[in-house]
């Protein structure tokens, strides 16, 4: 963990000095920004897909809590499970921060439902990609954002491996990012679970400290032999997420990307970030050197010209 933080500081320093070099002033603040991920007491949610009955109460609770726009269909209308766009099931949008999708898994008794929302990564890709620093990973575990500074560049949508952040495409005046905040302002901050967790009739979701939930999840797998796939999705994926999942069917069958790897997204970018300070320090010297060399040749030519005068074409 120590190493990790050091590396981040180094990367930030590199970029910040890039700014310093290109434009005087500013940037100083950059060295003392918040630190990332892995807060020891952060909260999380363990989602047990095997318990979900697809009632969409969590969607309704989220809509109410976050004062979202009216849905297109009532929340007790189950026909939404058949909605397919471009071969994709429903996803988060500017109208909804969480969706439940139904999957018919071959060989499994009855449908499997999967609740889906922001996973609140320990080291969020969205956060590391945001150039206005709108995102914050709170010590409580939520990944929140400040829509007052969001420019709407949508890089976080590119950077999110889970396709979570949405954008207010319908707003001409103030189109900004919108996504699940784990009910940070209204609940999590005060030690209360997110609205969806509390609303769920089946208690599909268990709220608690992330490290306790990992333990709990493994216990649940162990105590119910044969019931679960022996994996907690989100324990390690892209550096670990606050929302984690247990499933009785292979994760890939219910819409999870199982090829994300354990590296946080920012690790894929660091190769470029290390190039930045190098270019900044080496280029000026290198090209000034080239310039001096070229001038020297020219001067030599000039002195030759002085002895044998001849016109160069312009």
């Amino acid at each position, binding site marked *: 963990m120590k190493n990790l933080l050091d590396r981040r500081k180094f990367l930030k320093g590199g970029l910040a000095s890039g700014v310093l070099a290109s434009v005087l002033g500013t940037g100083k603040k950059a060295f003392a920004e918040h630190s990332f991920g892995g807060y020891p007491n952060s909260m999380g949610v363990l989602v047990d897909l095997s*318990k979900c009955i697809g009632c969409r109460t969590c969607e309704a609770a989220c809509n109410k809590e976050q004062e979202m726009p*009216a849905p297109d269909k*009532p929340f007790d209308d189950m026909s939404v499970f058949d909605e397919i766009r471009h071969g994709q099931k429903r996803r988060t949008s500017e109208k909804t921060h969480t969706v439940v999708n139904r999957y018919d898994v071959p060989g499994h*008794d009855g449908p499997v439902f999967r609740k889906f929302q922001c996973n609140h990564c320990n080291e969020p890709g969205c956060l590391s990609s945001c150039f206005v620093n709108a995102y914050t990973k709170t010590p409580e575990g939520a990944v929140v954002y400040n829509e007052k500074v969001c420019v709407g560049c949508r890089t976080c949508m590119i950077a999110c491996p889970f396709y979570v952040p949405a954008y207010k495409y319908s707003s001409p005046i103030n189109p900004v990012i919108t996504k699940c905040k784990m009910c940070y302002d209204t609940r999590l901050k005060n030690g209360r679970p997110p609205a969806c967790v509390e609303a769920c*009739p089946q*208690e599909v979701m*268990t709220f608690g400290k992330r490290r306790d939930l990992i333990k709990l999840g493994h216990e649940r797998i162990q105590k119910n032999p044969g019931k679960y796939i022996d994996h907690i999705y989100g324990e390690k994926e892209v550096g670990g997420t606050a929302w984690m999942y247990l499933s009785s069917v292979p994760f890939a069958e219910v819409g999870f990307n199982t090829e994300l790897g354990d590296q946080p997204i920012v690790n894929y970018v660091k190769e470029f970030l290390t190039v930045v300070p190098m270019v900044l320090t080496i280029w000026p010297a290198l090209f000034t050197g080239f310039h001096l060399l070229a001038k020297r040749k020219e001067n030599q030519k000039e002195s030759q010209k002085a002895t044998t005068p001849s016109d160069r074409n312009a």
Partner: protein
Amino acid sequence: MSKKFITAWLALLALMMLNVQPAQSMEGPDTATLDSLTDLFAPVSFNHAMHVDVVANDCAVCHHHTTGTKVTDERCARCHKNSGEANSVACRDCHNANPFSAENLQKIADAELLFHTDKPGLKGAYHRKCLGCHQEMGAPTACENCHTKTEKGEAFYRSGKFAPTPGKEPASE
């Protein structure tokens, strides 16, 4: 879950055929009104007597060992083999209505020797127990088969008179 349940069920049937009566005499209400969580839905009028019949007087199907019935699950029996009747058999007395409150989470964290760290809250316990069995038995499973929505519930689900006006499709994709 399902297989285990079926096994238990078959075991019960076998017991019945052998004409072995459960040790405990049957007590409990004919109907119970489950209303402690009433908000979006009206209270549930639970026909206890009918369900007692369905499980052939085996209280443990729902009440674990609290009524004094012998526990059937081997793992429970390791500790609760000789547990007697509990002071209270009501679900709400063990299953917390606010399982994720800071106090409850702290209580679990502080109790180092606590085994039941994964105990569902009251709402979870009700629904998992009822729905789990209803699914197995082919009993009704839709929300309003057991409890009707209140007006607040309709507003919450944006259904009934709160339903969104049809024909307003999302922006053309």
